[in-house]
């Protein structure tokens, strides 16, 4: 599969590490996830302002867990050039 990608990249004149494209793909899912987390977090805070502190903590917790996926993609983009 990756060999096919490499020939495709070479044929269309793309140079450099294909891992960076992998990072781009890896960022799609977490991007959607972070959007959902913060969107719903803000909505929850608007509905229940007195629980804002608790919601914020849990929101950031969820954000941190999702973000780890994107960051692993970023680290692997440098991993095997």
């Amino acid at each position, binding site marked *: 599969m990756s060999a096919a990608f490499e020939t495709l990249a070479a044929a269309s004149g793309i140079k450099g590490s294909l891992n960076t494209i992998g990072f781009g793909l890896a960022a799609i899912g977490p991007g959607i996830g972070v959007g959902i987390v913060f969107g719903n977090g803000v909505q929850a805070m608007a509905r229940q302002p007195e629980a804002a*502190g*608790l919601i914020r*903590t849990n929101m*950031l*917790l969820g*954000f*941190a*867990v999702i*973000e*780890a996926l994107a*960051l*692993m993609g*970023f*680290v692997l983009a*440098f991993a095997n050039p």
Partner: protein
Amino acid sequence: MSNEEVLAFETDCHLFQDCGFPAPSVWSFLFEPIFTVGPIEFNKIMLLALLGTALILTFFWAAFANPKVVPGKLQMVAEAGYDFVRRGVAREIMGKKGEPFVPLLVSLFFFVWVMNIWAVIPFAQFPVTSAIAFPAVLAAVVWVTYMTVTFRTNGFVGGIRNLCVPSGLPKPIYVILTPIEFFSNVILRPFTLTVRLFANMFAGHLLLLLFITATWYMLGTLGGTLYAIPAFVFALILTGFELFIQALQAYVFVVLTANYLSQALEEAH
């Protein structure tokens, strides 16, 4: 150091000079040793780490060495920082049980924060936590702490149950869930804790470096300078963003630590 492994500052390379943009990469995180003691190379990263540690120690020593009932200015600031972690993290997540862990959480928070903040201090301008050894050791400290707490509060069998067998689910699910829980709680947790902090700081430093070298690279001719201005503005905006991310990552690190500890303190059912 090969020809590609230099920054734009070092070659004095500019736009339209036909020398190609020397983009920053992994080698921007490697430093020549300042001096060598036996097998240990003392470089800029270690210098910054030592300086940062000394800074935190002096600050809290000066603030809390002889505490007063009516706090002075320095004690006020230190107490605000301490209280932020105690109220905002320990109480919020662990409740009353979190009280013995407040010193650990406060130390972790301020250590991580200061090590991150080196990224935007002039002349230092390198986040210590973007060298993976630092977050790895911090995560190892957290791992040892929560494993110890798990087995101390629940005993050996209870500790294993706490780590691998979440209660209150239909029996057949445990066949799948137990290995997953073990993998996520014992192996993945320290790994993600390390990688999250490391990658955030790594990415942030790379971004700042890219925009600043780009500014320098495009300076010189009139047309290039027109492009250099937005790049510099973006570098400034990103510096502000990085300040936010640094504080957030220190906070997230401590929140996750408190979360793991509060799970370890849960009694097995």
